[in-house]
């Protein structure tokens, strides 16, 4: 039976079911939101600083090697940290996963394995909780919604390890590439670098967030286009305040000038922050659930069926 186009009927009097949005909001505000981010990149690119800058609070510590006698980490480690930040009555439970040791050794083969495994483990844990007969009303969501991938500001092109890891990660999680320490590139260098990166990503068929789906309306498509033109974001992070024109802003002070982190002409931090928190936060969570998790789930269930079917057939 073909699905007929649904006709919209206008009610004769005000019914009042448009308050459902407030009811949902009320419910959701009570529950709070959950957002999980993983940061991937070499040591010393400013990952921890950037996270602290985005959420304007000290959430994670830099895990660089500061002393000569500190041993070098031999594998990529996974350090999840949980915080709850509140703004205007909205509670956001933030889970930030740091990956110290990535790309630090001389031989970096398979240094991305712990990361991919961790992401898949979160999907797997959620699936298991979903499949139990007696499951909780609200399953705790530890699936990673966004991966910030930090690129070294060489100005030349992506390194082989970056390409491999981005490809692997973009299959399991939403990847947002970021050019770290962008204050080492002049504006022309930055543009040239971005173009090269985009060309390389296209050449290797790496699917980057945001994805366009059919449900998006024109405005959203336009917004996604503009985001795609800006990826990768060239950012500068700073937790310290400097005085510019009498105002205290976050920035970095040098002898030749002051980098204002929140100035769009200096770096693209503002765009990244808006993208992550103001416009696409909900979309990131949804895409993880609908696209990545579903893909993982279907693969797992098919595999389970394969396992049980031959047994039944015997």
């Amino acid at each position, binding site marked *: 039976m073909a699905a007929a186009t649904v006709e919209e009927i206008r009610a004769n009097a005000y019914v009042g079911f448009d308050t459902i949005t407030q009811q949902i909001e009320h419910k959701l505000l009570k529950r709070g939101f959950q957002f999980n981010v993983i940061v991937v990149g070499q040591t010393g690119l400013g990952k921890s600083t950037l996270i602290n800058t985005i959420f304007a609070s000290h959430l994670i510590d830099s895990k660089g090697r500061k002393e000569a006698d500190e041993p070098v980490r031999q594998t990529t480690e996974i350090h999840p940290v949980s915080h709850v930040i509140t703004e205007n009555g909205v509670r956001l439970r933030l889970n930030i996963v740091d990956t110290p040791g990535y790309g630090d050794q001389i031989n*970096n*083969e398979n240094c991305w394995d712990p990361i991919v495994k961790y992401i898949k483990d979160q999907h797997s844990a959620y699936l298991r909780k979903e499949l139990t007969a007696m499951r909780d009303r609200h399953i705790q969501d530890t699936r990673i919604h966004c991966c910030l991938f930090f690129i070294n500001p060489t100005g030349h092109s992506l390194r082989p390890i970056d390409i491999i890891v981005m490809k692997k990660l973009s299959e399991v999680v939403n990847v947002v590439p970021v050019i770290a320490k962008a204050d*080492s590139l*002049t504006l022309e260098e930055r543009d040239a670098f971005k173009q090269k990166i985009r060309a390389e990503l296209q050449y290797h068929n790496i699917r980057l967030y945001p994805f366009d789906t059919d449900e998006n309306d024109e405005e959203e498509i336009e917004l996604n286009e503009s985001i795609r033109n800006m990826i990768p974001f060239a950012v500068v992070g700073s937790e310290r305040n400097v005085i510019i024109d009498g105002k205290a802003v976050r920035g970095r002070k*040098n002898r030749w000038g002051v980098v204002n982190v929140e100035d769009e002409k200096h770096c693209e931090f503002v765009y990244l922050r808006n993208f992550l928190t103001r416009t696409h936060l909900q979309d990131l969570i949804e895409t993880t659930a609908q696209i990545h998790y579903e893909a993982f789930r279907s693969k797992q269930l098919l595999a389970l069926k394969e396992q049980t079917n031959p047994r039944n057939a015997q």
Partner: protein
Amino acid sequence: MTDSYASTGNGDASLLTPNGSSKMNGSSPSLPTTSNEAGGASIIRKKLMGFVGFANLPNQVHRKSVRKGFQFTTMVVGESGLGKSTLINTLFNTTLYPPKETLPPSAERPSTVAIESISADIEESGVRLRLTVVDTPGFGDFVNNDESWKPIVENIEARFDSYLEQENRVNRQKIMDNRIHACLYFIQPTGHSLKPIDVECMRQLHTKVNLIPIIAKADTLTDEEVVEFKARILADIAYHNIHIFQAPVYENEDDEAIAEAEEIASKIPFAVVGSDQEVTTPDGRKVRGRAYPWGVVEVDNEDHCDFVKLRQMLVRTYMEELREYTNDVLYENWRTEKLISMGVIQDSSVFKEINPAIRIQEERIMHEAKLAKMEAEMKMVFQQKVQEKEAKLKQSEEELYARHREMKEALEKQRLDLEDKKRRIEAGRPLTPEKIPTGRKKGFLRT
């Protein structure tokens, strides 16, 4: 670092002259000569009564070396994108390295560290410098960077090898010195401390080349970060016992030079910014630098970065020191190791005064004596054998004779017997039951 050394490349066996002034190759006249007090020889210091004129020696050396020209080879090591080519262009104020064209994403990337070298002859105020820069593209860029320093170390050793071979040639007029005199090691400005690949590579290189660590792209770091980072790098270097190039300080230099040397030494590792382009500062000056939206970094401004100090160390003040240290210490160590490993033992009798004719005569006499001895021996052996043989033959001869006699007697007896029987038969006696011998005649017996 010692301050006594001999000049090499001049053909003599390098014996230190006991009361000599040591000659230097191409030093600037401001460096003082140091007197050699070798071997404990007592040196009598005399005062000059009048003007002799040997104070002009430095000028003579100067003129000669300017005529000869200078050679300097430096190597740049570091991950790609740290600004090595730009820095070289900035240091020598020429576009030695053309701007890099990037490969399209589909191009084949090389899978090992390559070694490329570029040479240029530059001239300034009549002084010619043949500058060679050895680049190492691909270092630290791969996923697996194990042994990525191997091609670099091999290249340095190959250059030492070729110099050693040139020194050992019969004709040593033209020796090309393309040993690496300085190695600029570029460190990524992470702000934390040295990465494992940096530590490992520096450990492999520091015994073979003068290491000068450099913090690349230092305009990413604020002042406090630079200070902290430098302290951490030096701590790491000390912890791993890495030997970086230290400018030598001589006792009899003037205060200004000492102060300068200290200043340079205090800034190691140098935090540099490179730029081969000219930009305009907010106050209208045209300088070499990088223009950002928030300000302009000037390369030649000592407040902004350590580029000026690096240039001083590398070119203005210590280029000759670097060259000498490479020649006298690094190369000599390597040479000793290599010769020992080849089994060459120090033989002090090799170069004594010997007249070759006498030597040959002696040898000939020795040889003849040996031959004579051999001859005598052989004769003796021969005689002995002959005697033995004679004795044996004699013995057998006697035996034969003995047998001969015996047989003869036996036959005689038989004959007598037979004759007896014959007489008896003729006398009519009966035959004895003895058999009548049927004349067993032996071959040579005739009756």
